[in-house]
């Protein structure tokens, strides 16, 4: 299903803070209609790479192309039109705490599109229901939502403008295994129905097995491998072997195979 045009193409990206070099000539592609799982050790710079793509962290060197356009060469207006075509799910949700769940989802729609209040409300409610929330949460404030609900509302907000690309920063962290599995499935379903390309930073081996089309591995500032899960499992690279071949890795693999048998 994934075809071969990259929607995001990162070449030789260098990012550092002061003396420390976080990304050292990292190169990675995300193809149209695929879910790319981005893994690496804690502090390896996975989130930094995501933040560099969406423009929250300045880069020192390298090019970042999104939809074939070099982000560094765009003017403000062109940049905004690209920003409308991606949605970001932050690790903690980053919902606006003074707005209700429904208002959070309405916010980008209200800002960017000139629509009737009725349509804005209907679309926002539709998004909330598409991420598996009942209409009852609409009036709740972020402080009143559970962790899983916060992630779902944040996902609905990320999807508010029907983006082509969605960035997910550890979408299943902090969720119980059942909630995490449901969230994985939700991402898969939404990716299919909306034709999304997904860039997913994750630590969750189950997610990698269950939903990712391809996996890219970041280690020591570089992307050391990229490909489907089978290539990762077959790799001889010591870091990959300990990551996927460790006890937890084998368990995740076992569960997925078990599910396939039933």
């Amino acid at each position, binding site marked *: 299903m994934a075809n071969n045009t990259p929607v995001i193409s990162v070449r030789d990206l260098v990012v550092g803070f002061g003396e420390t070099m976080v990304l050292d000539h990292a190169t990675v592609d995300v193809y149209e209609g695929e879910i790319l799982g981005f893994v690496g050790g804690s502090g390896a710079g996975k989130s930094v790479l995501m933040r560099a793509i969406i423009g929250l962290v300045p880069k020192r060197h390298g090019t970042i192309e999104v939809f074939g356009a070099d982000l560094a060469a765009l003017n403000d207006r062109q940049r905004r039109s690209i920003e409308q075509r991606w949605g970001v799910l932050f690790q903690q949700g980053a919902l606006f705490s003074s707005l209700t769940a429904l208002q959070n989802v309405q916010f980008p729609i209200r800002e960017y599109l000139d*629509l009737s209040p009725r*349509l804005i409300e209907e679309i926002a409610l539709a*998004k909330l*229901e*598409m991420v598996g929330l*009942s209409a009852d949460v609409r009036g709740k*404030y972020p402080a009143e939502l559970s962790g899983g609900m916060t992630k779902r509302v944040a996902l609905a907000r990320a999807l508010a*403008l*029907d983006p082509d690309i969605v960035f997910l920063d550890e979408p299943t962290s902090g969720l119980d295994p059942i909630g995490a599995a449901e969230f994985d499935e939700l991402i898969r379903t939404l990716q299919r*129905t909306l034709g999304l390309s997904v860039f997913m930073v994750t630590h969750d081996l189950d997610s990698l097995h269950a939903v990712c089309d391809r996996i890219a591995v970041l280690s020591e500032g570089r992307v050391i491998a990229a490909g489907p899960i089978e290539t990762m499992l077959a790799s001889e690279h010591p870091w990959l072997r300990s990551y996927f071949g460790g006890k937890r890795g084998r368990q995740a693999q076992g569960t997925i195979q078990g599910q396939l048998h039933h």
Partner: protein
Amino acid sequence: MSSVLLTATADGERLALAATGAWTAERAAELEGIVDEATRRHKDARSVDIDLAELERLDTFGAWLIERLKRAFAMRGSNARIVGLSDADRGLMEELRLVNRGPRQDRAKANRILLALEAVGRNVAEIGWSLVLIAQLLGALTAAALGTIAHPTRLRLTSIVHHLERVGWRAVPIIVLSTFVIGAILAQQGIFRFRTFGADVFVVDMVTVLVLREVGVLIVCVMVAGRSGSAYTAEIGSMKMREEINALRTMGLDPVEVLVLPRIVALVLAVPMLTFLGSMAALFGAGLVCWLYGGMAPDIYLDRLREAIWPPTFAVGMIKAPFMALTIGLVACVEGFEVEGSTASLGLKTTASVVKSIFLVIALDGVFAMFFAGIGM
């Protein structure tokens, strides 16, 4: 400019609608108009086919509008169906078939007078409630203070000194500067008015009584409420938001003892000292104006000052200071604990903390005025 997005072919009671082009977010406003228009115009269609075979692009916005079109016909009892759906869009249409089925939440238009009355009632109840909370915290604070007196090792000296530096030492320059200016202004106004009936010497009496009894302590309290009270509320409030207060509780520590007691002790120590410094600065400012503007020699000013200061005048201001500090501290901490999850509530409570503590300080000053008049001071 806009291409046709929906074409209708009516054949008696049968209606065929064909959607063409891109049904996406960018054109959603236009599409909504088209959809509503189509629903209005073809009132008597019994059977409606919505053909999506010619669609170029479809996103959630377009798909929802098609669903809305279909539902509008279905509501009237017509037989509406979607045909020519491509495989790529099938999943999306299926999703949207299920959404927005719940009852619409219509905002009830409430009576304005009732709303105003409700707001008044809520505010009155809130004032009463905040007085209760202040009393509650005062009780908890007393208990914590007695606890530390019984077990002096539990006194958080480092914390007290830290807060004393923040609310006392670092406030000195701004407090001295503002009270100096206030003293100078009082003296200038006094000289200007009193001179008309040749009573300029009594300016010194007026300034002394005003500054030492009222203005010194009030100015200091207003500054401290704005400077330190707001900081207390914001600190405790954000600790509450991030559940740090709950973390303290689960470790078996009393938030009042750990957070409130050192802050209020620091305030109760700092405000009298600041009041003293402030009053001196005000008298200095007044003296400077009397000399440069009023032509009163410094030694005459000092002589008049010595006569004007009846010891209770000085005591009245100083006695009030710790009580006002306690009020500011209590209000600031109460409001801090009242902060809820949202950033908006943090801002709201910080504002409330400053406004309430300044008002209560002024009210307390009134009570003191009656009290001191009663005992003849």
